[in-house]
């Protein structure tokens, strides 16, 4: 980007900022002596994993720390004026007008009972004395500017009538409405599908160039930062690890933590971690999963033709390999795996798992079948019973099948927990006392304790930080080669898919648009959609440079 000469006043200058949260026992410092600056029109990325203090830092800049948070010391200078100790009343004049916010989750960031138009118009009502017809005209032109079709209709609609990407466009419209000098974008795309994510980031870029607004991009995704930022600030445990020009940091990271992040980020690391290790697949075709002409229709409540969630889907998975099912929300991937594990009955088609026709199974047969196929869910917080301890969680599946005495069950559970790398002392803990990565290890142990042959991993690493994600992927890898497991890996993250899968099916609107081995699909995509997905993987700049 442009080199800015020294005398220019930065839009924002943070110096020795320390922030603490009050909790039951006293104060706990979450941000330690953080200093950085943002020049006019510049994009600075604040990169870190959960607990790094990146969101706390961003919140403090706009005076929106949680009730128990407090700026201990340091200064936040907006155009040279220190606003760190301003009252709410003073900050109200700055918020929205000079600094604005693009929030993380577009789903819950708009008031569900107010129209889009009134929520966008509100910022003019707060800061300007425009008449209501003038406000309405501004609202419509802004909605058009952020790329929403039929602005007049959108203005009358409620948030739930818009898709996630459209809602994020509305929130961006709110953020740019008064042409602020700085936009704080707090994980603006992490809740969106990859292709939508790319379009939203492109839009922010475009508006920045047009209005000359500086952007503070808060993200956990180094790939996103690499593509979009002029400078990167890396945070860990509330401390800056290093900061500098994007190119310099990616090419020659100085801190060990940045190096680690770079090697863990799937979008940067060299392709397949598996292919080299895995022995060539046996010549005799041994398909553990055969899906043939699968279709599932849902009756619409409002009437009309039934909704085809999955339409004529066929694929096969060889024993001992990993097959990825890739698609964005609404692509039918969840419906597909629900049919495969026997939670849902397909409208048409055949599913054979290890020689058994799943769609014909009922009652006891279905229950016995579940031993062979186990699920690991996306959310390690929601899928574990908060009232059970780790050992109880892992022994429970065994209690559903005869032939295990109490001591057998415990012994088996202990062995598998040790195998997934959980320390002995964690066995008596409840889920809330475990980290996200540990919880996912427990979920994996629970799936493996019945010695299944097929493990369905439903976005099983998507909610984890990159470094934790990398460790879990390593673990899955080891378990597969040791136990001869077959994985069905459902994901929206193509970077991860490329790393760990042997074969891929790409779904769009319930149909298979691409399929085959990973190298076939990634190097020679047959459909435009797959190409678009691959192009949307963040971190391309760096890969291109490398």
């Amino acid at each position, binding site marked *: 980007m442009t080199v800015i000469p020294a005398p220019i006043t930065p839009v924002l200058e943070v110096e020795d900022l320390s922030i603490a949260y009050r909790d039951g026992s006293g104060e706990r410092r979450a941000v330690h002596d953080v200093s950085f600056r943002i020049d006019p029109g510049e994009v600075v990325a604040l990169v870190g994993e959960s607990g790094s203090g990146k969101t706390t830092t961003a919140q403090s800049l706009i005076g929106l720390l949680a009730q128990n948070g407090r700026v201990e010391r340091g200064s936040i200078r907006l155009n040279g004026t220190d606003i760190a100790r301003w009252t709410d009343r003073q900050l109200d004049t700055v*918020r929205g007008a000079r600094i604005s*916010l693009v929030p993380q989750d577009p789903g819950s*960031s708009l008031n569900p009972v107010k129209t889009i138009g009134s929520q966008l118009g509100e910022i003019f009502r707060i800061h300007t004395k425009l008449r209501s017809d003038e406000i309405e005209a501004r609202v419509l032109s802004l909605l058009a500017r952020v790329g929403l079709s039929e602005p007049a209709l959108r203005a009358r609609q409620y948030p739930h009538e818009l898709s996630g990407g459209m809602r994020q466009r509305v929130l961006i419209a709110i953020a740019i409405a008064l042409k602020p000098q700085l936009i704080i974008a707090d994980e603006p795309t992490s809740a969106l599908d990859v292709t939508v994510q790319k379009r939203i980031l492109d839009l922010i870029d475009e508006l920045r160039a047009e209005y000359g607004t500086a952007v503070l991009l808060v993200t956990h995704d180094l790939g996103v930062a690499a593509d979009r930022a002029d400078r990167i600030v890396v945070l860990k445990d509330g401390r800056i690890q290093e900061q500098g020009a994007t190119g310099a940091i990616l090419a020659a990271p100085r801190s060990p933590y940045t190096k680690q992040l770079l090697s863990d980020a799937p979008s940067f690391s060299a392709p397949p971690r598996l292919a080299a290790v895995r022995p060539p697949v046996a010549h005799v075709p041994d398909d553990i999963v055969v899906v043939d002409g699968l279709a599932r229709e849902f009756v619409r409540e409002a009437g009309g033709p039934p909704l085809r969630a999955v339409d004529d889907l066929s694929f096969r998975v060889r024993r001992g390999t990993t097959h990825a099912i890739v698609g964005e929300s609404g692509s039918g991937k969840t419906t597909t795996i629900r049919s495969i594990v026997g939670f849902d009955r397909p409208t048409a088609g055949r599913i054979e798992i290890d020689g058994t026709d799943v769609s014909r199974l009922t009652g006891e047969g279905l229950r016995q079948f579940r031993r062979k196929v186990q699920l690991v869910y996306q959310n390690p917080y929601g899928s574990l019973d908060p009232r059970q301890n780790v050992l109880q969680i892992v022994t429970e599946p065994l209690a559903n099948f005869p032939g295990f005495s109490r001591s057998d069950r415990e012994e088996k559970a202990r062995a598998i927990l040790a195998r997934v790398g959980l320390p002995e002392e964690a066995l008596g803990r409840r889920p809330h006392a475990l980290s996200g990565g540990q919880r996912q290890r427990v979920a994996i142990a629970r799936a493996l304790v019945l010695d299944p042959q097929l493990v369905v991993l439903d976005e099983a690493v998507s909610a984890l930080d990159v470094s934790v994600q990398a460790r879990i992927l390593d673990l899955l890898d080891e378990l597969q080669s040791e136990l001869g497991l077959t994985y069905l890996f459902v994901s929206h993250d193509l970077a991860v898919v490329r790393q760990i899968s042997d074969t891929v099916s790409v779904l769009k609107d319930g149909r298979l648009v691409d399929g085959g081995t990973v190298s076939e699909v990634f190097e020679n995509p047959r459909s435009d959609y797959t190409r678009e997905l691959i192009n949307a993987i963040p971190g391309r700049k760096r890969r291109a440079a490398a």
Partner: protein
Amino acid sequence: MSGYLLNRVAQALFVLWAAFTISFVLLQAMPGDAILIKFQNPDLGLTAQQVAEIRASYAVDSSVLVQYARTIGKFVAGDFGYSVQAGVPVASLLAAHLPATLKLAALGFLLAAVLATAIAFLSSLAPFAWLRGALQSVPSLFISIPTFWLGIMLIQLFSFRLKLVPVINPGPWQELILPVATLAVPISAPLAQVLVRNIDEVLTRPFVAVARAKGATRLWVLWRHVAKNALLPTLTIAGVLFGELIAGAVVTETVFGLNGIGGLTERAVGSQDTAVLQAIVVLSALAFVIINLTVDLLYPVLDPRLRTKTGAVA
């Protein structure tokens, strides 16, 4: 939508029928009856023969099933039977007593809603933690006060000590002041509690942060973003609290000597006037059902998310 409405109306009718049947069975199961209580009094000097004739004229000796069928038939036709004690049709008794209770209940509920809203919003705006804590403990205090005790205390304080409200011959509105306050206090408590919790919960939602980031003041956010979202779940509680309101009205009317349904109920229980009690139970159930039906139908009006299916497809 029409399917939904039909379904809800059918449910409402079922509740009415169940209320009627259960109260009928319970009232039948009671030993003794109103006729014995009224006419067996030795002062009247009636012979056993005469009492039996009176009983026959009220048809209380026919089988339970026949009585049930006859009573339900009459109820459906709008005939609630005769009060044995007062010797007049139950319908005219109700007509005479209902207005006072309606006035009391409506005003009591209104005051409760105002009290609850005031407590909830003030506590959310309170600038100091101690004030917030104090305001938030008001509901727990309110809910633990027994209605009869509060009524007596209010009379003591406002009528006898401060002489603000006359006890003898008060005006038609003056006489309502203390009963309405007595009734409102225990009902406002759960409303306020739910409202406080909802406000706290809504305040943590991301759209509130977005509104604050627009530069909106706390008051603006509370009024324009939080209020409606927090009130929605409270509506259900309000419907359920109606039962509380009826129970409260009985005690309140007794304490303040008001001539309403509460007083009527109390006397009917004393004299085992089954016909009157039966009518009061069905009437209360009807009011309950109507209120809850209204709440259900009101939801889609207040929450746009619930009307997508019926609205035009965008």
